[in-house]
């Protein structure tokens, strides 16, 4: 693992927070001009999911004991509650920022409780739950703005929550965060391979959210195309890293036919 250059946690956190919030606010302020710009929200969500996948990687490599999915579900659970709260205050443009801050606060509370009361011994637990809740909130905000066309509480409730698309964001977004570590964990795990898988998963989530958008055909087409592009780039990078990290890649050919077996 040491021969590969690692991206430090703070750089990725900055990438997730800044990229995520800039994406959401670009979508927020540019979408009244042309709804096509909503795709920036999904790009922000992709940044957040890469950040979240790295946090999952750091915390789950200590061994949670419960499987990696638990922390992804925890992240999105905290994110959903914080996002709905932040948007329900009707603060206008401050809403997403408040949702992000509230989710970090909830994450810190849950982290402190799991260390102090449950007695978890992971040293980075509080920082990780804080970061992961923040990443979850940005991910939900970014995908919600694409689907609902705005971050108005009413629009989000009507178009994302009541329609049930929130569950798709929950699982598809959660996948982008928890699946990379779950499928790459082990002694040969490398950060770049894991993060490229996260981008690939986030690309799939972006295609799905683009499909659900109510902002018209332009937004649907642009978001889905960019999502497919991210998926394609992520998948190729991931495949490249797999080939790099594997001892040997052997082509075994097709399955033998019945005559060859006999």
């Amino acid at each position, binding site marked *: 693992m040491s021969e590969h250059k690692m991206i430090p946690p703070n750089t990725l956190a900055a990438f997730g927070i800044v990229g995520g919030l800039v994406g959401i606010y670009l979508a927020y302020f540019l979408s009244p001009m042309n709804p096509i710009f909503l795709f920036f929200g999904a790009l922000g969500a992709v940044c957040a999911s890469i950040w979240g996948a790295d946090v999952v990687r750091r915390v789950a490599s200590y061994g949670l004991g*419960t499987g990696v999915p638990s922390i992804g579900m*925890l992240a999105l659970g905290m994110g959903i*509650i914080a996002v709905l709260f932040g948007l*329900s205050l*009707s*603060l206008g443009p401050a809403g997403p920022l408040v949702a992000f801050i509230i989710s970090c606060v909830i994450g810190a*509370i849950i982290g402190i409780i799991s260390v102090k009361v449950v007695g*978890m011994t992971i040293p980075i637990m509080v920082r990780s739950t804080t970061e992961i809740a923040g990443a979850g909130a940005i991910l939900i905000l970014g995908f919600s703005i694409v689907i609902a066309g705005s971050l108005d509480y009413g629009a989000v*409730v009507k178009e994302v929550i009541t329609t049930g698309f929130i*569950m798709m964001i929950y699982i598809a977004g959660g996948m982008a965060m928890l699946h990379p570590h779950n499928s790459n964990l082990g002694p040969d795990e490398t950060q770049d391979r894991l993060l490229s898988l996260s981008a690939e998963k986030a690309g799939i989530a972006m295609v799905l959210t683009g499909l659900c958008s109510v902002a018209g055909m332009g937004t649907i087409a642009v978001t889905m195309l960019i999502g497919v592009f991210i998926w394609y780039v992520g998948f190729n990078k991931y495949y490249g890293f797999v080939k790099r990290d594997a001892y040997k890649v052997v082509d075994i050919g097709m399955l033998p036919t019945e005559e060859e077996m006999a």
Partner: protein
Amino acid sequence: MIDLVGLIAPNILWILAIVIGGTLISISVHFIPVGGAPAAMAQATGIGTGTVMLAAGAGIAGIIAAGSVMDLNQDIGVVLGAAAVGAAVMLAATMIVATWIYAYGVGVMPVSAKVKYDPITKYRQDLYVSKGTEGHGIPTVAYVSSTIGGLLGGLGAGLAYYALMKVGTYAYAGVIPLEVHNLNLVGVVATFTIGFFFINSVIPSYNIVGTIEGFHDPKFKRWPKAAVASFLASIPLGIVAVIAVGALAFVGGL
């Protein structure tokens, strides 16, 4: 900006109900026999998946039951009963099918490795544990334990759902009260309850370190820690949830 004090003050009782619901969910996880990945390979007693998936599945079944009943009858006993039974039926159905698969598909017998005799059937257990495994399948005691867990978890989820529905339909000063049939309200409350359920099932699964067999497992004695943790964690979540759901009434239920 909405009136926060006017929102929280009449709903203190419901915040308490949400907190109790979260604590019940947390306790319920300790009853459910989850074996994680080893159980999926029939090398540990319990169902072969994570705590969160199983508990959340039961919780969501409970929320669906509570939601569909609440549409017809707003009596708290009926709603909570439906939620508890819904979750318990979901878990019982999962386990009976899992037992069939373990018995007829994998070819192992239901046996617990944590006790010498099944506390309910009094059958000998240790003789039947395959070498190198920690039990396999779902023995009677784990089945009964899990049904109790389903009842408790459903009760917790139903309580949180009922409380949030009451918050949403409360007649605030100068605001037209919402109806229980309001789809947006149902959607927000259900989403909240599911997020809440996920959080409160992850905390106890850290407490039991991923696997448990049921109330006969020595790890079960750790439940007070998770109950306290979930109680504390549910207080801020309850307040936040009450504000977000109550705000729906202020914007006219959309």
